[in-house]
């Protein structure tokens, strides 16, 4: 590349090549000689140098953007996506569990919740609806009927717990009569009337 000089002054491209170190040693020397005697071109060189620094900054900001971890918004989006995926997987797993066996030799029994023989599912309030559990509408209705507070509080249903119930069934003279200081169940004799004596 030759240094093209117009009206005795180097063109903008030559100054840009100079600051980019794209000129040969001889070309750079020639340009520098001119710059020593020409304040106007020295000012133009300053402008070219500023622009060159700007390009370096832009390239570095581009590189740092590519290296930077994803933004907070993207992270939240990914987390929500992951949670959504988990919920989807859980729903699919629940549907697979509730699906009746697909044996061609036997008729597929439609298990209704009301027919469920397990004692834990004898609560009519919750399981009264008859529907096919493989039906997504039924599954959603069931999920909606679950009281989340009750499901996470193990003490909320202690009088109906089968184990506790069996104790009272074997000892009919006892009945639950409140909670102790530690939150545990208190059992009192049935005929122990505090107001009797």
């Amino acid at each position, binding site marked *: 590349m030759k240094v093209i000089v117009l009206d005795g002054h180097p063109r903008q491209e030559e100054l840009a090549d100079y600051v980019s*170190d794209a000129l040969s040693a001889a070309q750079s020397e020639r340009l520098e000689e001119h710059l020593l005697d020409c304040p106007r071109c020295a000012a133009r060189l300053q402008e070219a*140098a500023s622009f060159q620094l700007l390009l*370096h900054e832009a390239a570095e900001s581009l590189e740092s953007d590519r290296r930077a971890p994803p933004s907070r918004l993207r992270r939240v989006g990914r987390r929500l996506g992951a949670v959504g995926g988990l919920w989807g997987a859980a729903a699919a797993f629940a549907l697979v569990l509730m699906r009746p066996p697909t044996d061609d030799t036997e008729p597929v029994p439609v298990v209704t919740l009301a027919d469920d023989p397990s004692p834990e599912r004898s609560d009519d309030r919750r399981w009264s609806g008859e529907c096919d559990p493989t039906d997504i509408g039924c599954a959603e209705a069931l999920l909606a009927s679950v009281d989340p507070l009750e499901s996470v509080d193990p003490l909320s249903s202690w009088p109906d717990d089968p184990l506790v119930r069996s104790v009272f069934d074997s000892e009919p003279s006892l009945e639950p009569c409140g909670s102790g200081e530690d939150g545990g169940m208190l059992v009192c004799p049935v005929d122990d009337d505090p107001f009797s004596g």
Partner: protein
Amino acid sequence: MWVWPAEAEPEAPDATRAEPVDEVPWDDMMRRHGRRVVVALVAQGVPLERAKELAQDAWLRVIDRHRRGHITDLQLPGLVIAQAGFLARDDMRRRDRRSRLDEPHRQAAANDLSLDLEDQLDARQRLRVVRSVLDRASPNAQRVFGLLYGERAMSPAEVATELGLSVQRVRQIVCELRKRMRAAIAEPGRKLR
């Protein structure tokens, strides 16, 4: 009571100091980044000849400090540019120390400070404009630009080899990008310094 001083224990080696390492290819580094250091000074208004002297001084200082093991995190060319900038400011302080005591000059210095803040804001704005042009460019053009002006600071010939393009094509891409950037900066309401 005077106590005979115990023999001084040999000084424990400073674990924070790195072992003197001279594995840095300084000649190659100076060839690759030398012009950028000079350009950084010229952009600050330092005359070219003085900028070359200060840049040379900055390189020598950084090399010397590194050989003594005082520099643990060697970042080039940033460290040399920072050192050269410091030397340039120190140079300016020495020259203007006497006149800085004058009240009019102090007022001028305050004005310079406000102008400096304006310059910084303007520089950020210009960077945003240039980045927007760069972000709109093709991925290929962005790669070329990044290799030329980024951390690796390759020459057009090196970029051409790396990306399998001709040197002429590399130059053409960069020329077009710079042209667009200049045009974006020079849009009405914007003025390139």
